[in-house]
């Protein structure tokens, strides 16, 4: 009997050894939870990766490009000469998963809903900035009225969607390619109890947290896949029969949330998953050469990371003596450009690429991904040069820095090995130049780190930026403008830079805009507000029977590729 039970158990178990993902099915494993499947709340990559396959936007990135767009739910669009009116002709014969036909009313409802709700957890601030002239919602900005929202987004008599902007925004179209601006099924949403789309009720929905909305639980989009089932750790999708672009080759998609990295890697090797979240680059060594796996390496990096040098430190507690006496620093320590340049020449960029990025990284001339429009590779850049660093340290503060030395407190996010190594490289190189130089490194919890940095209390930090939309303004204004989001963290204010950035964000002529961003890069080199940390390249590991993944991989997509574009 015992033998029979054991044999039975083994047989039951052995069944699984033969299990591989069927050819009509795509299995993805990742660690991150899905926040929401309601486009108005999608702002994280995990939710975005699913949203991109359920819903569609008016325009999308063309192939692998991050600067060219092509039609999706809009077949064509016209921009008025003053750059303030966008008119979209919508695709005909497009069905939602519910069976409803997409019309302009759906597009109008979707974008108005985003402007109305504009929850603080969402990415709708940049749509609101473009269409209403403010990133805030109506609870925080009394100037927002229903009339303004209705005027900004409306359908005309020809069934076209018309967007009216208060000022030209060259990034308007790429903002619409963000999955949060996807078109939702108005009738379906209303039937589930979502906002009814009227002036009468709009105020009740301002700022609402719709993470777990009825629409999130029962989404209906125009995308190639529809959600069939979900539980705490699994999402199951099937191909949408009435998809306007033709039924995709992969019929089923299963997303499994598996927090343990070792479990995900084993599943990938065994063929129980087609693609998994692998973890950092050192993991690649475990997977390279494994049978049945393919590595797609060298994926461009669409983030930018910098070491900030705060020019107006607002916390006396971190200044030590508060003077240039060798026991601390003054609050405006980094206001001297010579000092910033000295630090920029002290960072060993090549060593960072070798040690942290395992040799797979590039130096950047400006804090903008090199694949983005506006990036100028010809802008001069800093390199590790102890002699030049010494020369600039000697010039800084009339020689006082070199003569008396300093104690500088630099922080990084606790747990980030890359950030820690970058800071350690800088510390070692700076301290090597003069025994009177002291850099004290402090790992900090993220929330504390964010709060202090945003209040200008951190003398030196390392932080990155990931794009909301593929436009140089999203990076360069954020980092370099004194009205930008990172200004409180850097305290960098330069009137020439501000003027260039303001001009560029209003210039619709691409050639002129590109020239302006080259000037921004050059000005950044001259004034050295940040140390540009080299950017690594990405990689994915997937089963080798999957076709079409690399050809269609786009770094602006949260999931990297549309499921409809792959086959087995």
């Amino acid at each position: 009997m015992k033998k029979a039970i054991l044999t039975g158990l083994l047989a039951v178990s052995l069944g699984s050894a033969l299990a591989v993902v069927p050819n009509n099915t795509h299995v993805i494993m990742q660690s991150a939870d899905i926040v929401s499947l309601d486009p108005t709340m999608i702002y994280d990559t995990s939710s975005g990766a699913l949203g991109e396959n359920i819903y569609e936007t008016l325009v999308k990135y063309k192939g692998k490009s991050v600067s060219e767009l092509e039609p999706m739910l809009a077949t064509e669009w016209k921009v008025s000469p003053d750059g303030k009116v966008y008119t979209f002709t919508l695709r005909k014969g497009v069905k939602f998963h519910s069976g409803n036909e997409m019309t302009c009313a759906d597009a109008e409802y979707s974008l108005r809903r985003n402007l109305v709700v504009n929850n603080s957890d969402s990415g709708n601030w940049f749509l609101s900035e473009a269409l209403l002239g403010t990133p805030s919602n109506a609870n925080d900005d009394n100037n927002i009225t229903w009339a303004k929202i209705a005027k900004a987004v409306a359908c005309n008599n020809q069934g076209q969607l018309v967007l009216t902007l208060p000022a030209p925004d060259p990034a308007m179209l790429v903002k619409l390619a963000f999955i949060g601006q996807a078109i939702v099924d108005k009738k379906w949403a209303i039937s589930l109890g979502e906002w009814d789309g009227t002036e009468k009720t709009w105020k009740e929905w301002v700022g609402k947290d719709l993470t777990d909305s009825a629409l999130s639980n029962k989404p209906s989009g125009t995308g190639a896949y529809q959600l069939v089932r979900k539980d705490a750790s699994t999402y199951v999708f099937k191909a949408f029969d009435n998809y306007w672009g033709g039924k995709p080759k992969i019929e089923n998609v299963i997303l499994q949330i598996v927090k343990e990295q070792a479990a995900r890697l084993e599943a990938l090797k065994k063929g129980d998953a087609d693609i998994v979240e692998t973890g950092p680059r050192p993991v690649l060594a475990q997977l390279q050469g494994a049978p049945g796996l393919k590595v797609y390496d060298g994926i461009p990096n669409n983030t930018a990371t910098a070491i900030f040098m705060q020019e107006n430190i607002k916390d006396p507690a971190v200044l030590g003596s508060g003077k240039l006496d060798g026991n601390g620093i003054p609050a405006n320590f980094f206001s001297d450009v010579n000092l910033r340049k000295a630090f920029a020449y002290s960072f060993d960029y090549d060593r960072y690429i070798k040690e942290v990025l395992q040799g797979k990284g590039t130096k950047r001339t400006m804090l903008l991904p090199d694949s983005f429009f506006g990036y100028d590779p010809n802008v001069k850049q800093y390199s590790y040069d102890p002699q030049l660093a010494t020369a600039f340290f000697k010039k800084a503060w009339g020689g006082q820095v070199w003569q008396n030395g300093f104690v500088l407190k630099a922080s990084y996010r606790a747990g980030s090995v890359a950030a820690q190594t970058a800071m350690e490289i800088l510390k070692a190189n700076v301290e090597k130049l003069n025994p009177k130089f002291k850099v004290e490194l402090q790992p900090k919890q993220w929330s504390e780190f964010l709060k202090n940095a945003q209040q200008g209390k951190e003398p030196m930090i390392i932080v990155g930026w990931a794009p909301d939309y593929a436009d140089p303004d999203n990076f360069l204004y954020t980092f370099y403008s004194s009205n930008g989001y990172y200004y409180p963290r850097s305290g960098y204010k330069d009137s020439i830079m501000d003027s260039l950035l303001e001009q560029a964000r209003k210039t619709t002529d691409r050639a002129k805009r590109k020239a302006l961003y080259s000037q921004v890069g050059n000005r950044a080199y001259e004034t050295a507000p940040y140390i540009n940390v080299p950017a690594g390249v990405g990689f994915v590991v997937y089963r080798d029977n999957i076709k079409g993944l690399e050809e269609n991989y786009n770094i602006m997509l949260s999931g990297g590729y549309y499921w409809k574009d792959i086959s087995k």
Partner: protein
Amino acid sequence: MFAFIVRRLLFLPVVIFVLSVLIVALLQFLTPEQRAAAYIRSDNQARNLPLIIKQYGLDQPFYVQYWNWVKQAAQGNLGFSKSSNKPVWDTIKERFPSTVELALYSLIPLIGFGVWLGTLAGLNKNKFIDQFARVFAVVTGNIPTFVMGIILLVVFYGLLGIAPGPGQLSPESQINQMINPVPRVTGMLSIDALLAGNWPIFWDVIRHLILPVITLTTVLNAGLIMVTRGSMIEALSQDYVRTAKAKGLSERAVNLKHARRNALLPVATIAGFQVAGLLGGAVITETIFGWPGIGSWGADAAARFDVPGILGFALLIGVITVVMNLVVDIMYAAIDPRVRFD
């Protein structure tokens, strides 16, 4: 006995009150910005930190925040967990049955094996089986759960391929579920599949339970083995055992009916706590094997300072602990007739 149960259950609201005040008060040591971390998933989102604090009232005084929570809770709304992206009550409803399922399947081998080996060891003090049991308990009791789980996963799934991978179902079963879904009755997928007569799904869930159950059984067994062993040795030296032997009862009857029954009293306490622990979510085991239970959510909520999530999770554990204590007390009376409820 009924009055005893009612009295003990009346204790529940007090536990809930004390726990909730304690947790909300403890969380006040974190700054509003730290508590807002639960709402932020990227650097970009951090731009809205002040708005998030304002919207969710994270900067209000302790008593206001607590009162707001009580008002909501009184209406059956335990708040919204930002780590599960669902209301707390919905999260518990969705995930708790999976935890109960894992606990139920672990319980039989855990208690059965632990008591069996402990009894054998006690009966054979200092003999080979006793030495083996002690070494086994020391070794398995000192292996961290995550090490045991990963070793089992890598060896039996990765290398030998005789156990299924992470999750509750294989891809084929997921597709079967899509075509022919198992209706949710208890929320425990294996039981629901059994009720629906869906054997392929049932077997698939059972297969996926094998490694997590072995992990839990192995790691948690040590305490039970050692306590059972010690209690058995102590019971065997008691006068009543000698009397029973003198009466001419068979050794089996003496060992099982007289000695072990008395030896099980402390074992019941340990087992009760272990069940409470299992029902509170086997955090690491659930995480390693991708089991969608309550433990992985609790860990996530704590790591992200998700206040409603932490509160909901802690209260659930509190209730489980009170109820399990009650069950242990009732078991005491069943095992030892000298124990009365007054």
